[in-house]
């Protein structure tokens, strides 16, 4: 099958949608399909062979935050050329309602279109304002996929109608096979906790973890919190409790390999996010690596954790609740072993082998419908349409 995938966000910048598109493309390529990905990227950057750049992304304020997007006539021409040269059986757009290359591809595409909605944080204003403008284009989408119930709810609220939920994928085996690193591994009396994510983005909740740490240290004095992720944590650490700071190890941004090794090593992975999460891919990665998950009780996280059965959850934003949960879990090796086992099993649900199978099933279902349509449609000109639409002449 010839598949064209469009990613609206800059390829050079790490992000959930980019990783999802990259993995999906690589899985389908490995299965023998022809795949081309269109995304904004610096033209001189080193790009994988399946990637076509639609130009450099420009930082623009949209939907309450600065997003790196592409637009304008040059991009538009590149989108059209990509569609023409690709001759795709199916075009799969990600985040079609961002004012970027996905929307342009939707505008230009004559191929059957599948769209995946990732976010659950779109402000209603952005989607509502553009509604009459976008509606006819959105009608081209034959299948709408949401990555979670939260994302589906956002789509339902702003655009109406149903979506099919297919979760984000993870290469489970890569995490399960990673080798632990001694300096990150917990020892009796000195357990380790992992935090992953941008440290200077408040909604990732590092602040909650730092506030919870002193109470954890009271019960387990040797505890260390390993913080991995880009951004500058200096401000946060300056204001935090000195004991918490002393127990915190800032690793900075880590490679994919080190991320897996970190999750394999620690006694618990902490996800103290405050909101704005649509899926929670890191939770799946932690479960795949066999790390017991301690997460805030956001609805997206509860869904990933099978309603909280495969991880320990606490009241979102509450440092006392987090420390209580951690103190209990670190004291109970049996419970940790249980969570490890349940998590490993649960992570299988999100393995790319299963996720890609479902995406392929969507493509096939859509193509079946599109072919049936072509077979039935008789050629109709503009004039016949006009005649047909005149009152009286078209009705018996």
């Amino acid at each position: 099958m010839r598949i064209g995938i469009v990613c609206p966000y800059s390829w050079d910048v790490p992000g959930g949608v980019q990783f999802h598109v990259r993995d999906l493309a690589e899985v389908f390529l490995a299965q023998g399909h022809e795949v081309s990905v269109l995304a904004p990227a610096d033209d001189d950057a080193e790009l994988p062979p399946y990637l076509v750049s639609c130009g450099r992304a420009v930082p623009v304020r949209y939907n309450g935050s600065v997003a790196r997007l592409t637009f304008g006539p040059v991009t538009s021409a590149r989108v059209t050329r990509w569609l023409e040269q690709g001759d795709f059986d199916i075009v799969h757009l990600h985040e079609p309602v961002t004012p970027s290359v996905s929307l342009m591809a939707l505008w230009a595409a004559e191929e059957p279109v599948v769209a995946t909605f990732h976010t659950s944080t779109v402000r209603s204003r952005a989607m509502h304002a553009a509604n009459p403008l976008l509606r006819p284009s959105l009608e081209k989408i034959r299948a709408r996929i949401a990555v979670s119930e939260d994302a589906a709810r956002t789509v339902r609220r702003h655009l109406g109608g149903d979506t099919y939920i297919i979760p984000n994928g993870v290469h489970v085996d890569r995490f399960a096979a990673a080798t632990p690193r001694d300096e990150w591994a917990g020892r009796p009396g000195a357990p380790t906790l992992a935090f992953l994510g941008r440290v200077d983005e408040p909604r990732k909740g590092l602040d909650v973890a730092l506030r919870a740490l002193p109470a954890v240290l009271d019960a387990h004095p040797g505890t260390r919190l390993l913080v991995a992720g880009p951004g500058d944590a200096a401000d946060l650490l300056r204001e935090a409790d000195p004991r918490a700071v002393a127990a915190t190890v800032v690793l900075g941004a880590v490679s994919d390999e080190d991320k897996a090794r970190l999750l394999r090593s620690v006694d618990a992975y902490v996800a103290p996010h405050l909101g704005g999460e649509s899926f929670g891919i890191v939770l799946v990665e932690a479960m795949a690596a066999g790390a017991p998950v301690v997460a805030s009780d956001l609805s997206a996280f509860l869904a990933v954790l099978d309603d909280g059965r495969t991880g320990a959850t606490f009241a979102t934003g509450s440092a006392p609740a987090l420390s209580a949960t951690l103190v209990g879990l670190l004291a109970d090796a049996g419970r940790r072993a249980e969570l490890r086992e349940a998590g490993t099993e649960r992570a299988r649900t999100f393995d790319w082998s299963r996720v890609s199978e479902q995406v392929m099933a969507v493509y096939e279902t859509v193509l079946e419908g599109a072919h049936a349509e072509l077979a039935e449609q008789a050629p109709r000109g503009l004039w016949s349409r006009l005649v047909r639409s005149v009152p009286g002449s078209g009705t018996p």
Partner: protein
Amino acid sequence: MSGTDVDVLQVTTFVVIVLIGVAWYLSYAAARLDRLHAKVEGAMSALDAQLVRRAEATLELANSGSLDPATALLLADAATDSIERTTEHPLDEDLLDGQHFGGREQVETTLSEVLAVTLTDEVVGGLRTEDDELVAEALDRISASALRVRMARRFHNDAVREVRRVRDKRVVRWFRLAGRAALPERVEFDDEVPAALTH
């Protein structure tokens, strides 16, 4: 005298421009509606094809001889019902037929229920260990088509929603832009995939 001439010319030009605008808009709206109807039809035919596949695979499993006779009979009965109803309603006959499900909801719900009741973890586990290629293939086909039935039904219902939204518009109703096309309806039936087949 000459003043009124200019006025007539201006008014005529204006009226012609407005008429052209209205005509363009109407033809655009009609084309859009046409496309939406075609989408519903395509989605319905995909749903139909998957339902046929599901019923055929179920029948194959029932006839494989690997199940106890009571289970086999239940499955065969539900599958045959579904296949008979499908062939009674050939969907490619004309344009309008494609937008109706022909009251098959109950039959398909029954097949879903029977599949869920009969294909338990235990039964599927037993069938998988038998190492019979035909049985394994039938099971795979049931689970693949059941998944696609679920998807196709969602996509169909979503397309129906879009058509109905546009057809609700005043312009479309006044100018009868929908022509003779029947108003498509949502298809609702139990399309649960047997849990034993999903893992």
